[in-house]
C-alpha cells in the first residue's frame, strides 16, 4: 500500500523563499527592513559553529533531547496491522515540539541584540515555549492569544503568566490564532527596533517557513537514526498532524528523498470536510496569500479568510506552511483529514492502551495512524510524531464529555 516517489536533489526554498509558487515575502514595506535583517542573521548563524554548538547543548541539557522513539506494541497489536512507533516530542521540556524552534529563535534574537520577544499562540504551547526561553534568557516577553483560545486553554495562559510573560487577549476578527498573528505583526512594525517576533510555525514571510523548519528538523534527523538503530530500517510511513505544520515538516523534511517512505499530513476535518466546519486548507482550500506567504488557505469566493473549526486550538488555522502546499502539489506527501470525534477516540485509545495522554493536535495523527495501520502488514512500520502531551486539553475534553472537574 505504500507509495513510491522519486524526489532527488530537493533544495527549497529558493533564495527568495519560494517553494514553487508558494511561500515568498508578502509583507508591507514597514516590515521589509526587519525581515532583511533577520534573513542576514539567520543565514549567518546557521553556519556559525559556535551558535550551533550552543543550540545543540541547549537542546540536550534544557529540552532533554534526543526524545525517544517508543514502539506502541499494545496499540499496534489491538489495531492489527503495521507496527506503530511514536516520536515522543511530548516528553520535551514544556511538553511539545514547539520548544525546538523557540530555543533556536531566542538564541538568534539574543545574537541580534533584541531585548523584547513577541509571539502568537493558538493552543498556548508555542506561547509557553516562548515564555519559557524568554524567562531563561531574561528577555521581555509578550504573547498574543485569541480571546476564544484563552478560554479554551486557560492552564497554558496561567503557565505563561507564571513564566513572566504578558498575555494579550486578541478580540479582533475570529479571536483565534490567525488574529493573534495579525496582532503580533502589528506589534512588530510598531516596536521594530528592539523586538524579535518568534513565529511558532512554518508559515509567515520568508525566512520563517525555512528557519522554523530548520529548527524543527531535529525531529526527523533523530528519527531517521533511531528507527535505523531500533528496527534496522526506515519506517514505511510517517504521520504527523498539520495546523501550520511545524512538527510535520520537522519530521518529514529529512525523509523527503527517502523514496520508500510514504508521508501523511493530517489536517483537522473538524465536524467533517463536507460541513465546511474544519481547518483543512490542504484538503479543501485554494491558493492565496495570507500572513506573508502564498499557500493553500480557507477563504470565501471573494478572498476573505473564513473562520475555521477544530476541537484542537493548535490546528485551528486557515492557512498552512507553504512547503506543505508544495509537497502536496508535487505528490510527495498526502494530506488527509481527521474529524473531531475520531481525534477524541484516538486520544482515549492511546491513553488507555499505552498510558500516554496525547495532545488533541497529536491525537489527529494517532487517529490516522490507526486507520493506516489496518491497511498495512505487521512487518511494516509507521512513525507518528506525538507532537505534544495532552494535559492542557483535559479540561476541554471533560467539558465536551459532560464531566465536572
Amino acid at each position, binding site marked *: 500500500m505504500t507509495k513510491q516517489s522519486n524526489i532527488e536533489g530537493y533544495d527549497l526554498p529558493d533564495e527568495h523563499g519560494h517553494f514553487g509558487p508558494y511561500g515568498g515575502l508578502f509583507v508591507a514595506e514597514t516590515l521589509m527592513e526587519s525581515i532583511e535583517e533577520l534573513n542576514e542573521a539567520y543565514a549567518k548563524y546557521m553556519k556559525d559553529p559556535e551558535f550551533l554548538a550552543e543550540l545543540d547543548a541547549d537542546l540536550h541539557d534544557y529540552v532533554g533531547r534526543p526524545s525517544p522513539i517508543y514502539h506502541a506494541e499494545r496499540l499496534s497489536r489491538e489495531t492489527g496491522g503495521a507496527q506503530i512507533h511514536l516520536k515522543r516530542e511530548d516528553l520535551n521540556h514544556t511538553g511539545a515540539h514547539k520548544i525546538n524552534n523557540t530555543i533556536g529563535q531566542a538564541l538568534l534574537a539574543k545574537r541580534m541584540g533584541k531585548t523584547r520577544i513577541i509571539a502568537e499562540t493558538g493552543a498556548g504551547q508555542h506561547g509557553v515555549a516562548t515564555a519559557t526561553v524568554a524567562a531563561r534568557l531574561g528577555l521581555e516577553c509578550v504573547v498574543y492569544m485569541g480571546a476564544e483560545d484563552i478560554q479554551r486553554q486557560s492552564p497554558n495562559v496561567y503557565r505563561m503568566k507564571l513564566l513572566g510573560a504578558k498575555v494579550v487577549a486578541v478580540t479582533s476578527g475570529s479571536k483565534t490564532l490567525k488574529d493573534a498573528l495579525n496582532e503580533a505583526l502589528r506589534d512588530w512594525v510598531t516596536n521594530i527596533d528592539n523586538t524579535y517576533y518568534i513565529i511558532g510555525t512554518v508559515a509567515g514571510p520568508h525566512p520563517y517557513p525555512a528557519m522554523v523548519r530548520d529548527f524543527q528538523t531535529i525531529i526527523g534527523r533523530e528519527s531517521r537514526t533511531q528507527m535505523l538503530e531500533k528496527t534496522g530500517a526506515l519506517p514505511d510511513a510517517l504521520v504527523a498532524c498539520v495546523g501550520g505544520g511545524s512538527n510535520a515538516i520537522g519530521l518529514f523534511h529529512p525523509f523527503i528523498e527517502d523514496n520508500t517512505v510514504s508521508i501523511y499530513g493530517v489536517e483537522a476535518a473538524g465536524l467533517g470536510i463536507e460541513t465546511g466546519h474544519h481547518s483543512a486548507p490542504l484538503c479543501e482550500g485554494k491558493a492565496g496569500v495570507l500572513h506573508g506567504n502564498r499557500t493553500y488557505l480557507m477563504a470565501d469566493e471573494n*478572498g476573505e479568510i473564513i473562520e475555521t473549526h477544530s476541537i484542537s486550538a493548535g490546528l485551528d488555522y486557515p492557512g498552512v506552511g507553504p512547503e506543505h502546499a508544495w509537497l502536496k502539489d508535487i505528490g510527495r506527501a498526502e494530506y488527509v483529514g481527521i474529524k473531531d470525534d475520531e481525534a477524541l477516540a484516538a486520544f482515549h485509545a492511546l491513553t488507555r492502551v499505552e498510558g500516554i495522554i496525547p495532545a488533541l493536535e497529536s491525537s489527529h495523527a494517532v487517529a490516522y495512524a490507526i486507520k493506516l495501520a489496518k491497511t498495512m502488514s505487521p512487518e511494516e512500520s509507521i512513525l507518528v510524531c506525538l507532537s505534544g502531551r495532552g494535559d492542557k486539553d483535559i479540561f476541554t475534553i471533560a467539558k465536551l464529555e459532560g464531566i465536572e472537574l
Partner: protein
Amino acid sequence: MSRLDNCFKALKETQQKALVPFITAGDPNADFTLNCMHNMVKAGASIIELGVPFSDPMADGPVIQKASERALAAGMSLKGVLDIVARFRQTDQLTPVVLMGYLNPIEFMGYEAFAKKAADVGVDGVLTVDIPPEESAELISAYDTYGIVPIFLLAPTSHEKRIKKVAALAKGYIYYVSLKGVTGAASLELDSVTDKVKEIKQFTDLPLAIGFGVKNAEIAANIAKISDAVVVGSALINCISDANGDENQAQTGISKLLSDMRVAMDAVTKT
C-alpha cells in the same frame, strides 16, 4: 496623461498640495461611501483612496480594522468596491480614485481580471499593502496592460537600496508611511519625516504622499509644507464610528475635517 498626473499638475499651478482622504468602502454601506466620495471632493479632496475591506488587515490599527469588519458584515467585497467606483464615475470623471487593500482578494479574482475590471470602472491606481516590489512583477505587468498605476509604500526603515527599488517600479505617487507602526497610531514626528522626505526625493521625481498619524488640520498643514500630498484615514473613519449609525452626522464630521485641512494646507502653500 493619467488622471493622477493631471491632478498633481493642476495642483502645482494653483500652488496647492493634494489632500487625499481614505475611507473604507462599504463602511457602513455602499450608498454612504458613494455619497461621501462626492462630498469629500466638494470639501477639498484631490484624490480619493478607497479601502478594500479585508478580513485580516495586518498593517492597520484598530480604527480601520473595525471599519473593515463593519464593511464586510454589510456584505462589501472587492467586486462591490468596483461597483461603487463605477457609480462614482457616472458624475465625476476628474477625481483620481486609488484602491488600497490587501493582496488576497485580488489573488482570488485573478490579477488580469482585476486589472481589467478596475480599468473599466475608472480606477486610477492600486496600493496593495502586502506586496513589496520583490513579489510584484506579475501583478504590475497586468496593471501595465490596462493602464492601472501601481502605488508603493516607503517607511522610516526603508534604506537607500529599498528606496531605489520602489522608485524604479512606482508610478503616480509614492506613499510615505510617516511612522513605525500601524494606521492611526500616535502622531508623527515632523523633524524625522522632513529628513526622510529629503532622502527619498534624491531618488525619485514622483510626488510624495505622507500618511499615518495625520489627525488634524495643523498636522496636515505641516505635512503639506514638506510633501506633495497629505493622506488622512483613521481620523475620518473615527467620524463614522463616533456617529453610531447617524450617517448625516458622520458626513458632516468628515466634510468639516477635510475643509479645515484644505484651508490650513492652502494657507501655508499659497503665496
